[in-house]
């Protein structure tokens, strides 16, 4: 793509995109830290993760302001307008991912203080977290390279996280039924799993946004979904 006649316009658009990528990198790091903290029972890391979320919030605000200013002052058209709009959308998804990572860390702080975590449970969460992280990495690469195929791959493979969430969900139910003293911890872990599942959803949102950015068209068709926990009930003893 050739540059704009007005050089500063191109520079502003580029800066917007750089900031989104930067925010993506930060969100990725936050998620990584949150998962590491919970698997290694690392309180200091969990603390840091909570504190660093502010950076994501600040960046989102900056991106939003820059995009609004660009729209007001440059009146971007077509692809350029999509650049500005999608920067806002992706930034908001990344900010949510940051919030969810922060929430995972907050919960892990509570869990570390009050409970011993069974290794098997944490392993499940860690695997889920890695999957979500992989999705996030891939979709951020798709954004940086403006690659629709890559975005499509992310969009199609969210199901795996959903399925893993199903099994973690069931496992936690079993623990809680076996020993009511586990309910406190398991509830926290359940939320952690749910948060990771939500992060996967945000990654697919970003995939949709990237596809729209590049093609100008919305993704059509039904996305494969695997989260069945909303319709799962606890079997009652008879």
């Amino acid at each position, binding site marked *: *793509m*050739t*540059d*704009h006649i007005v050089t500063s316009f191109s520079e502003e658009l580029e800066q917007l995109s750089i900031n989104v990528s930067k925010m993506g990198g930060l969100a990725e790091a936050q998620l990584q830290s949150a998962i590491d903290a919970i698997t290694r029972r690392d309180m200091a890391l969990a603390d840091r993760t909570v504190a660093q979320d502010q950076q994501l919030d600040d960046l989102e605000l900056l991106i939003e302001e820059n995009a609004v200013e660009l729209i007001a002052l440059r*009146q971007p*058209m*077509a*692809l350029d307008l999509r650049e500005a709009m999608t920067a806002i959308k992706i930034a908001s998804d990344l900010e949510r991912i940051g919030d969810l990572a922060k929430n995972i860390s907050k919960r892990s702080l509570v869990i570390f203080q009050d409970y011993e975590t069974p290794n098997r449970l944490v392993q499940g969460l860690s695997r889920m977290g890695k999957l979500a992280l992989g999705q996030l990495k891939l979709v951020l690469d798709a954004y940086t390279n403006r690659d629709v195929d890559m975005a499509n791959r992310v969009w199609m493979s969210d199901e795996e996280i959903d399925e893993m969430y199903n099994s973690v969900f069931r496992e936690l139910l079993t623990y809680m039924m076996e020993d009511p003293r586990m309910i406190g911890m398991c509830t926290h872990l359940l939320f952690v799993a749910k948060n990771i599942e939500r992060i996967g959803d945000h990654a697919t949102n970003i995939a949709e946004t990237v596809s729209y950015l590049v093609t100008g068209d919305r993704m059509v068709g039904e996305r494969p979904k695997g989260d069945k926990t909303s319709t799962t009930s606890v079997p009652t003893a008879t």
Partner: protein
Amino acid sequence: MSVAEAIKTETPAEKPEQVSHKITGKDVCVYYGDKQALFDVNLDVREKQVTSLIGPSGCGKSTFLRCINRMNDVIDGCRVEGEIKVDGTDIYRSGLDVVELRARVGMVFQKPNPFPKSIYDNIAYGPRIHGQASDSAELDQIVETSLRRAGLWEEVKDRLDNPGTGLSGGQQQRLCIARAIAVNPEVILMDEPCSALDPIATARIEELIDELREKFTIVIVTHSMQQAARVSQRTAFFHMGVVVEEGATSDIFTKPQDGRTLDYITGRFG
């Protein structure tokens, strides 16, 4: 058959969009002496819609516009080839009454150019020479209706005898639009009608264009892409004498098909 299937089969097949073309241009070539300004332009203009012609300076958009009411006839050495039809009639066939054509296809220019006459006479001039009013009462009526349609009546009704040239720029342009619609044309051509006006006057003209669309087919040449986006339903992008792309305005400005269009509307033309 299931209910869903029954509903499906009863739905009538989607009808193709009914499109009525007021103006059709086929293989239009225009030469100024040896220099060719338009190359095989094929462009149809839909009835009662606003079509904007955009493109860089010298791309041929004004040339095409002026072909539609044969304004190019007055330029020495200008030659038009191909076919332009208004309502199915070839406007370049021999024996066509050009004066009558220009009454049907009116024009508004870049700079407001009222006659050095009273406001009243500016409007009354056309209907008078075309014999469209049988008495002075009818002429009064035409003047009032035209000024009302142009959104100027309330501002000038008490000073119809004042010279048209004494009005503000925006008012003068609306006077020219009123003058164009006084002879009851079917098509109005506008050649950058707002480029000499301030933003408020521009907004008034744009509002007016939107209202006039109910009765007239409008073709507008504009350098302001935002204006094209605001006022028109269809947009044609001209570049170096050819029509690169024509389509719904919302598509042209959000997802143009041709790279040259994208470059132009996003300000990348080198």
